[in-house]
């Protein structure tokens, strides 16, 4: 079939299709929309992407991405220096910040341990986490990692490494969801909920 558009637009479509959440059809729709709104959207977006490309850097303290180093969160004096929330990815950090559930500092590992995918401890920001903890100001580390095999293995691994330090290591609770009824929960969830019960 002959190309409907020139190579420039085709390239734009192909690049947009590589963005997570966009497939070929929606990339085509997005490209068309951008071209139609050339001045109102395409130009500002191109400028914003250019600036992002030039200025965005990875925070050398926590691994977050920002335009400054240390990042806005690491530089915020109102945050709790005695608490570190460990996450696998920047997306997880953003999710926790959206929920406004913690005022602690963050540490982004850059992934989780996966023997099958060849991701080992040296591929993750574990050494830098230990260095932050070795300063002695941290009282608690919250392991906010996914409840997957690799996420939980990573949580167990870090827990073991931190066992020599005088601090509390916690991980996110698994169990009864908000609004959940016990009668409808499977045995695995009940098992986790009992194991991680809390004093009231």
């Amino acid at each position, binding site marked *: 079939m002959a190309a409907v558009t020139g190579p420039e637009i085709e390239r734009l479509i192909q690049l947009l299709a590589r963005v997570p959440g966009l497939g*070929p059809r929606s990339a085509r729709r997005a490209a068309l929309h951008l071209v139609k709104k050339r001045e109102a959207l395409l130009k500002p977006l191109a400028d914003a992407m250019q600036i992002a490309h030039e200025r965005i850097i990875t925070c050398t303290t926590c691994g977050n991405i920002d335009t400054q180093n240390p990042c806005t969160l690491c530089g915020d004096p109102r945050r709790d220096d005695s608490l570190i929330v460990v996450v696998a990815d920047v997306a997880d950090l953003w999710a926790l910040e959206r929920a406004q559930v913690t005022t602690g500092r963050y540490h982004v590992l850059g992934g989780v341990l996966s023997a099958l995918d060849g991701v080992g401890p040296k591929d993750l920001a574990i050494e830098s986490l230990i260095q932050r903890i070795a300063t002695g100001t941290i009282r608690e580390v919250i392991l906010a990692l996914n409840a997957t095999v690799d996420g939980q*293995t990573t949580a167990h691994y870090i*827990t073991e490494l931190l066992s020599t330090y005088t601090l509390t290591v916690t991980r996110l609770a698994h169990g009864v969801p908000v609004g959940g009824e016990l009668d409808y929960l*499977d045995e695995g*969830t009940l098992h986790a909920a009992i194991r991680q019960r809390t004093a009231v």
Partner: protein
Amino acid sequence: MTESLQRLPFVRRLMLQDFRSYAQTSLDFEHRLIAFTGENGAGKTNLLEALSLFTPGRGLRRIELGDMARHGSSGGFSLSLSLDEPDGDSRRLGTGYEPAGSETPGRRCRIDGVSVPSASAFADHLRLVWLTPAFDGLFAGPAGDRRRFLDRLVLAVNPDHGGRVSALERALRSRNKLLEQDRPDDTWLDAIEREIAETGVAVAAARRETLGRLAGLILESRDDTSPFPWAQLALDGPIEAELATSPALDVEDSYRDWLRDSRWRDKAAGRTLIGPHASDLVVHHGPKGIEAHQASTGEQKALLIGLVLAHAQLLSTMAGIAPLILLDEVAAHLDPRRRQALFERLDQMGVQVFMTGADPSAFAKMPASAECWTVTPGTAERL
């Protein structure tokens, strides 16, 4: 028996698009006993497979979804079910697959036009059990086949079981991979073994619970003269045995210790030797008191059918939804007396049953409240 079956969903219509041998087909059902007949390769089992995809997993043939699309199609397929629910409501369940490179590649699941995260969501409306000729050698075959059969039984009762079994398999593969290294990281191994112990004990506990209930139900209603002999069931595995006497948390600890102590042995073997992934389902022919694999081919088939029917009954009691039963080539090994008894039993249960068979005469004695379909490649017509 009908009293114990609480909710009886009814598939009113099945629509297939680009699925296996079907370009676009719609089948409307009016009865609960349904037989598909036709020559070998006509596409009878494809219809059962389509129904089996309304449950988590890869359906009754356990094949990649991408391989189920019709040859010559775009590589994807769509299936939809119109379901009458007991409260008078009706539901539209949809599932399908879009190939790589499409807008949303992978499996899609919908209920009443609204996307749901996975096929587990169908469990609120529909449960399924099935029996295919692939199970014919179950009792004499490898333990892995019996474990998969058991996991299928557990999954029908507990839709989360599949996720836990997959997690256990991944954790075990990770451990085996680490053990391949010359000097594996001990802390990393500790972490994986902890995960294996937690997931493994949860898997073993779920199997024990379902099997215990099933065995109890079978013993309660056992009848030595039934054409479908009752089965004596047990689980053979050290984790399961320990769960019988100790709390799950203690079993987790001892399994973890065992894993740590046996690293060198497992490294030499190239796999983790002990765990729920190595357990076996032990079945005895109840009335004869012999191991199931020692019974004749026909008796083994009858034993399996009895097991599947008992499971359907258990599912009705536990989940509150009577399952659809899919019986592929069910009449093949049964004598006329057993065949007749099967139809009567299914009719009494009141569940919706989909059967296949190459020989139409095998279904000649179905009750009046049954319907027969003739299947030819790409089409199905009600007789």
